């Protein structure tokens, strides 16, 4: 089991950041590498079990199932069903925690997955920096003051 953990401080109140994060169909609105997204089967984006089907700007297609969404804990978990990355049992959680000092937000994004041993380092780099940190950095800039 491989684990990836990335975190950043977003310069905005947690409730405000959560409005953006909570939309499981909203990646194109803030993740710079996502081109378009739809929810399969005409489900609602906050319906647990719904599947988002999105294309990356490099052409890749990913399908992910919403496993958990909490407006109380400000967290969202999902599993990869299909992706160009050779990963199995991939489950990720994106969660927000208020920082009372300055009214900021700690955003944490972590994933666990299985993969071929020789691919592990490259995948950790790709997921940790290429995906999670890139998206969190975009969030920081979006709310930057």
């Amino acid at each position: 089991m491989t684990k990836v953990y990335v975190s950043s401080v977003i310069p905005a109140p947690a409730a405000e950041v959560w409005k953006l994060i909570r939309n499981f169909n909203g990646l194109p609105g803030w993740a710079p590498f996502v081109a378009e997204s739809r929810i399969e089967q005409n489900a609602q984006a906050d319906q647990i079990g719904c599947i988002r089907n999105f294309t990356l700007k490099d052409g890749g297609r990913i399908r992910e199932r919403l496993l958990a969404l909490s407006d109380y804990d400000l967290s969202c978990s999902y599993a990869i069903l299909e992706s160009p990355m050779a990963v199995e049992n991939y489950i990720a959680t994106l969660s927000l925690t208020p920082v009372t000092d300055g009214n900021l937000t700690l955003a944490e994004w972590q994933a666990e997955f299985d993969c071929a041993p020789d691919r592990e380092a490259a995948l950790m780099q790709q997921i940790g920096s290429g995906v999670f940190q890139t998206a969190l950095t975009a969030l920081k800039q979006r709310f930057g003051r």
Partner: protein
Amino acid sequence: MVKVCQSTIIDAPVDEVWAILRDFNGHDRWHPAIAFSEIEGGDPVDAVGSVRHFRLNDGGELREQLLALSDKDRRLSYCLLEAPLPLMGYVASLRLKPVTDVDATFWEWRSEFSPPAHRRDELVKLVTEGIYRAGFTAVRNLLRRRNAGLLARAEASRAVAAPVLRADVPQALPVRSQNPSATTRAIVVERYGGPEELRLRDIALPPPAPDEVRIRHTVIGVNFIDVYCRSGFFDLLRPPGVPGMEAAGVIEAAGSAVSGFSAGDRVAYACPPVGAYSERRNMAPDLLVRLSDDISDEIAAAGLLKGVSASFLLHDVHAVKPGDIVLIHAAAGGIGQLLVQWARHLGATVIATVSSDDKARVVERLGAHHVIVYSSENFADAVMRLTGGRGVDVAYDAVGNDTFAGSLASLAVRGHLVSFGQASGPVGDWDIGRFASKSLTISRPNYAHYTDTPEKLSPHVARFFQALREGVIKAEAPTRYDLANAADAHRDLEARRTTGALVLVPGS
């Protein structure tokens, strides 16, 4: 019930912040409201269930109990047991998370409690601002001060480590290179823990104060007390700090107010403050011992603390007389070997215990009358058999938990148990009423109380050196470790892999 939650971002790596916060007894070193804190009953600071008893600057006293501690989640929970304020049912926890992109730390401090309704707002404000937010600021300031110190040290060490640069930038360096001793290599304990916390570092070494001398160490003694300092059992060392209380060396410089010592004198010491695990150090000369030509640096560094201890244990704590029967535990250890030889010389019958057959042979050669391998037989039974059911007059026990009960059982009527260490753990609680069954005496001597003035110390030093000269005690050559490998020395000492003394030698 009210809940309070405060959080902040600290501009330091999470492990650095955790090292400060996980010390349940360390809050008096950073929180501005706290004057003094101690752990009750000598429990380790990281033992879940331990109770800290602390006093605020306004005089109020509180007791809090550690409920949970996790190095995995970097979380610590505690509750209030007693307080001068009605914070009823107060349970708090603090946790840290790394901020990975900028190597900073998220710190959350939360609690819940049930205040009386009319004092609710006042108490919430006190907890929020007076405790949590003030704590955030204090830790931030502590880290800032510490990092400023580290930077200064790093700069100084760079100046020493790279003399080649002098040719390249002649005008920039003379100020720094004027004093080539501005740093020294030392073993630094950044936080309490295992042998792995003993790390070699360059640290600042200012010129000696007017009442200090600077010593260049040639050989450094390793003692079990250093393990207690490293682990935090004794607070003689406050991290970050340099352990070690015994060494021999040469005086390099003396402050203007020092008389009686000057550069070039050969000296040794066995006393606080800690700081001996270093190439050089400054210290007050009050308890320095001058070495005569027939006492080598190695013998002094390996033996002074043990020799002085053996002297007061056998002469002051209990005056051993001819005909006494003496039980000595860990007899193959550094101090054990001295006790065996010296007690025999004083005319006592010596019964020694050791953990292995190899060590038994060592102790027999030293002159013990009887040797018990306590891993293969019950030593208290053996003592009673050897003494015809009488028991011993005095038992010297620095093993602690594993032997304390057996030592009591080995004593004769009016016997004396001298408990001077606890290598295997604390001895626990005992009902002293039971000691009446044999009119027993228990002593728990503290090295400092027998040696903390020149007047107390010098007779023991003189007696120890005289015993060495006369061959009453023979000091075996100690096992040598490079100063950089101090962690190996501690591992070997704690694993009981050693016989005789251990020393550290500063590298060239």
